[in-house]
């Protein structure tokens, strides 16, 4: 996103098939048509037409059509762009796509404040970063600090091939490598699901922490605890760790409900989402029942 900064502070030259210049007192209105090309040698902007306002204290304009902005690290495409060199901000409208080194953002509208390296996206937003897809209506992001917040979330998908884990929440705080979900948090992946007041997803470690009355549901039961740690592998929930005051409720093969209360339970799930191994029962009698539920 640094290249937008260059775009907004550098002095551009322009090319077009034709331009109409309307000189006013202290202000030039330049309407350019056909194969617009603006560049400062580092950033290249193309479009079908442009409207440029230039004076001693105004340096702004609109670019229309198939707008494309290419820099060394970023590429933006949209149907319409508005820029203001002096206010150091730019707006992108309709089918906006921002393609960075690590992430792509699709939105109806993005406003970018150069001075603060801050972007505000509105409308139908899709943020893609490696295997994570965030669908939402409102997102603010500080590219310098790599922090932001996302509201009006539809869902967050962690996708790999045909497998996906969906995360939900009312609000997401974005930090480097970490997503903090709050408000009606849910996680759904195959036969497992969970809910809680908050969820923390650490991208590099592929771990999610459910907190605040968390409940984790699997095919043969559910788990409650003060905190539930979910470890992903190949976009599936591979391991669940119920921390502190844990309460595991499972159905046996005979459909008998068994409740196990222990301090820490670790469970591993097989391909079908069933528990294939449990740890944390060494000192409780519940181990007997565990043998029975193994398939």
């Amino acid at each position: 996103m640094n290249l937008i900064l260059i775009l907004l502070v550098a002095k551009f030259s322009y090319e077009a098939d034709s331009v109409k210049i309307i000189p006013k007192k202290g202000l030039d209105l330049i309407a350019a048509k056909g194969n617009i090309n603006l560049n400062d040698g580092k950033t290249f902007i193309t479009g079908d037409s442009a409207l440029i306002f230039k004076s001693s204290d105004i340096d702004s304009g609109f670019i229309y059509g198939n707008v494309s902005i290419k820099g060394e690290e970023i590429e933006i495409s949209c149907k319409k762009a508005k820029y203001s060199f002096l206010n150091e901000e730019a707006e992108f409208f309709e089918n906006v796509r921002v393609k960075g080194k690590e992430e792509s953002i699709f939105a109806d509208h993005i406003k970018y404040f150069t001075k603060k390296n801050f972007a505000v996206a509105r409308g139908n937003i899709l943020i893609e970063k490696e295997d994570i897809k965030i669908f939402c209506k409102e997102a603010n992001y500080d590219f310098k600090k790599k922090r932001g917040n996302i509201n009006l979330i539809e869902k967050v998908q962690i996708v790999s091939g045909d497998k996906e884990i969906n995360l939900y929440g009312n609000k997401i705080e974005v930090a480097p490598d970490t997503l903090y979900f709050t408000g009606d948090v849910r996680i759904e992946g195959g036969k497992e699901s969970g809910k809680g007041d908050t969820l923390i997803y650490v991208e590099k470690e592929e771990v999610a922490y459910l907190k605040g009355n968390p409940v984790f549901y699997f095919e043969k039961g559910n788990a409650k605890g003060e905190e539930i740690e979910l470890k992903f592998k190949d976009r599936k929930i591979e391991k669940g760790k119920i921390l502190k005051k844990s309460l595991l409720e499972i159905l046996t093969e005979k459909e008998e409900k068994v409740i196990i209360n222990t301090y820490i339970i670790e469970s591993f799930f097989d391909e079908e989402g069933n528990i294939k191994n449990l740890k944390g029962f060494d000192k409780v009698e519940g181990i007997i029942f565990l043998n029975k539920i193994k398939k």
Partner: protein
Amino acid sequence: MEKSKKIILIFLLIFGFCKKSEVKKKEEKLSGFEKIHLIESRGETKSFELFAKNVVDEEDSVFLYDFKVIFYDSQGVKTGELTGDSGWINKKNLNILARKNVILKHERESLFTEEIVWIDSLKIAKSDKDVIFYHENNVTYGKGFITGKNLKEIIIRGRVKGGGE
């Protein structure tokens, strides 16, 4: 004596072909263009003033050497000026063809080219030649242009290039 003849000649030629126009003659000194000074007007309002260092009269037009034209709108307000090394003015329609080192000025803007045609009935200027247009600390390059009425706007054609000075 020679100078006076030329002035009268031009005056008569233009007057003869412009029935609705009242052409007034003046002899003024204006930075190198003191030889000829013609004022073409509609009623009391000036339409344009022409200054030339030398002229050659021909059947339908007058050949101009080292000339300058000042244009006015219908209110008599100056809209711009045109200078060139040589050119022609058509006696019938008062269209002007300016050639070589042609400069068209409008307020703070200046346009440089090798040829400009002024169409008096429309009050527009145009050219198919390479142009350089200076405006608000910017310069725009193109091939061909056409102005709006009274030089209020300009369309530059060709593969137009522009930027800050």
